[in-house]
């Protein structure tokens, strides 16, 4: 009879019931005084006990499949008896469709400051392909002067902007690259790589993984570091040398990433606002818990703080983040007059933070 067979369960059940009935029925016969009746009582109780425990063991073993056979239970099962086999890859379905994580589509030089027009680095138009998220995101990469010849890995600032292509605007590709080139030439900023992405990489400006929808957080925290690391001489995020820079369109996304993914981003600079209205879909997987997880105010009050430095810069108020953030999160505000976007100062701050992240270098 097998260890897992139903017949064994039935047998033990019947045996237990019979033993219990016998004990209760023949109780008076064992009630006499003397050594022999006492020993018989003990034996009767022990027999019932064994029967009950065996039944419990067999039932539990059947439901959890701890032991498959008597030989296994008693430790006589020996030998590996298995061979590792590789699964034959089914060609066709998805196979052979490897897409490069980053493709350069165009490139142009950035003119440095001064009458001599010193080299200011270059800007590449690129397409990122998220290997895990499946997202295809167009963007730009700024490489500082001297990048092709150097060997050192560089820190990375990821810019999330709603006006990359609006020439002349503060957070346009041209202004971002020119500002970085000018600050580097002036010696105020150590060379870094700017990765510039649109504020809308999915159907909206949200930046978390939408269940069944856009996996934006996975793109920013997994795909983007892998793509940038494969295409450029960039520091890995674990070096704490990745930061975020956002305009008002990308602010919510940047703050959400800073508060939930500090393992990728060590710092963020963004315009102050109350950030109380998530830009994601209202339904959000039909789950109140998931919508709660997307609420930055709730994260601030209820989740453990993450080790990240956030600078609010520009006009407006950054409450409740200024008063609500606790270590290891650090929040500051650089108050500026309305309409003034001192991009150079913000980029300098980021460069400084990336050079010496607070208390995290090992």
């Amino acid at each position, binding site marked *: 009879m097998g260890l897992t067979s139903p017949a064994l369960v039935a047998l033990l059940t019947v045996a237990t019931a019979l033993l*219990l009935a016998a004990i*209760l029925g023949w*109780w*008076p016969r064992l*009630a*006499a005084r003397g050594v022999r009746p006492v020993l018989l*009582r003990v034996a009767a*109780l022990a027999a*019932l006990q064994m029967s009950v*425990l065996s039944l*419990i063991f067999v039932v539990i073993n059947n439901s*959890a*499949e*701890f*032991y*498959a*056979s008597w030989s*296994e239970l008693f430790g006589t*099962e020996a030998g*590996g*008896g*298995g*061979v*590792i*086999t*590789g*699964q034959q*890859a*089914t060609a066709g*379905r998805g*196979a052979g469709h*490897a897409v490069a994580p980053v493709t350069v589509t165009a490139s142009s030089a950035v003119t440095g400051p001064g009458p001599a027009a010193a080299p200011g680095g270059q800007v590449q138009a690129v397409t990122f392909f*998220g*290997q*895990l998220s499946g997202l295809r995101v167009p963007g730009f990469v700024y490489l500082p002067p001297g990048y092709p010849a150097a060997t050192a890995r560089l820190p990375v600032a990821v810019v999330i902007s709603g006006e990359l292509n609006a020439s002349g605007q503060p957070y346009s590709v041209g202004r971002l690259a020119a500002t970085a080139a000018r600050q580097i030439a002036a010696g105020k900023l150590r060379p870094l790589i700017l990765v510039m992405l649109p504020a809308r990489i999915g159907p909206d400006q949200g930046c978390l*993984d939408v*269940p*069944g*929808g856009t996996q934006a957080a996975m793109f920013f925290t*997994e795909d983007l570091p892998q793509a940038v690391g494969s295409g450029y001489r960039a520091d*890995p995020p*674990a070096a704490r040398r990745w930061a975020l820079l956002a305009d008002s369109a990308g602010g919510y996304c940047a703050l959400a990433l800073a508060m939930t*993914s*500090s*393992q990728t981003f060590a710092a963020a600079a963004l315009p102050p606002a109350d950030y109380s209205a998530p830009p994601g879909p209202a339904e959000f*997987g*039909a*789950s*109140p*818990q*998931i919508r*709660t*997880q997307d609420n930055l105010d*709730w994260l601030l009050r209820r*989740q*453990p703080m*993450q*080790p990240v430095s956030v600078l609010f810069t520009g006009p407006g108020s950054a409450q409740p983040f200024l008063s609500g953030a606790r270590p*290891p999160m650090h929040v500051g505000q650089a108050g500026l007059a309305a309409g003034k976007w001192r991009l150079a100062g913000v980029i300098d701050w980021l460069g400084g933070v990336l050079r010496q992240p607070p208390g995290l270098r*090992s």
Partner: protein
Amino acid sequence: MGLTSGFFMGLMIAAALASVAATVWLWPRLASQRIAVVAGRLGLVAATQLLVIAAVLVFFNGYLGFFGSWSALFGGGSAAPASAAGAVASSRPIVVTGTDLGPVPGGSALPETVDGKLAAKPPHVYALHPAPTALAPAPGLDLSGGVASAARYVGKVLQVTLRGEHTGIVSAADYVYLPPQYFRPAYARTRFPVVLALTGYPNDPWSIVRRLALPATAARLAGTGQIGPAIYVMMNVSVALPRDTECTNVPAGPQALTFLAQDVPLAVERTFRAQSGRSGWAVMGYSTGGYCAVKLAMTDPYEFSSAVSMAGYYTAVTDRTTGNVYGGSVAFRNENNLDWRLGHLPAPPVSVLVTSSRVGEKDLPGTLAFLRLIRPPMQGYSLIVAQGGHNYGTWQRQLPQSLEWMNRRLAPARPQAARPPRG
């Protein structure tokens, strides 16, 4: 009084024996055939049975390592680990809470003469008494005298408390096995590959040391040159016992996936001479730990390059112990279903080895179904034994081949090149 302490075990056995004695003693007084008296007999026998069963359950809980403490069983704990971690400077992600566990417990395949103490103190000794004076930071491990020389031959198992820097999750009573090479001068600057090993649910990580005998098996295979040295980090798959978190970033709850996939590697890389990056990291586990090992590799392929799942499952389960881990969202639950991921999302660039058995493992059909869904760049391998249930004996038989399979995919720890002779 600890759930797994010898005192509590003794108390339960004493109570069971006392109830048997009392029943035998009271037997003659219940000898009449009135209905009330017969009911009294039944009650007496039932009480005896229950006490004996309770004693047996307490024994098997300790033996198989299901729940390590009362708080793990009933919840509401976490005070002890939190204070243990909080007592130390918050800049240390890993605090060593026990070092004299013996060189490598859990195996007799090792030279027992070294230091003469293979037998370890049971882990609850440390869990219950996290004496602040015993807390030593891991860098500059205080391995003086005999222990240090022993470590050079068989390695060392440390009990640690690990604090997640980004999730705030604290996991106490986990174990780290450092291989013997870690203590040898030739490897003094070598960074070692790391295997993250996860328990099932419910389980205590001590089971990986003692029942699965992972450190002992790794030491034996490394001793004969079948695998290279590696650091083994042995952790509880559930970060919020008694809740079964299924290594999920629970919406509005513990971010267990980020903790295991991001915080743990960062903490280990900052504390030990461990490799960083996917080529130096693999993850393995059994049962729930198997599901989580594959899930970690599939969702964080840039952290882990390979995964071994022993008797795991590949769908997103929910039951009484998990609670609402998916926030009530079908779409989010789908994303935690590994079969669904393979059908709907780009395949990640990782290798997985799944094990099962033809007789005795009810997850065999699910395992084969998962294998069939794997497509490039993901690579699937299987190890199906003829017979074996859902137990440590089966997993022990699969362990050597699994370790060799992982070893072939990890960047090896190389000793420093010998200095070239002068002249």
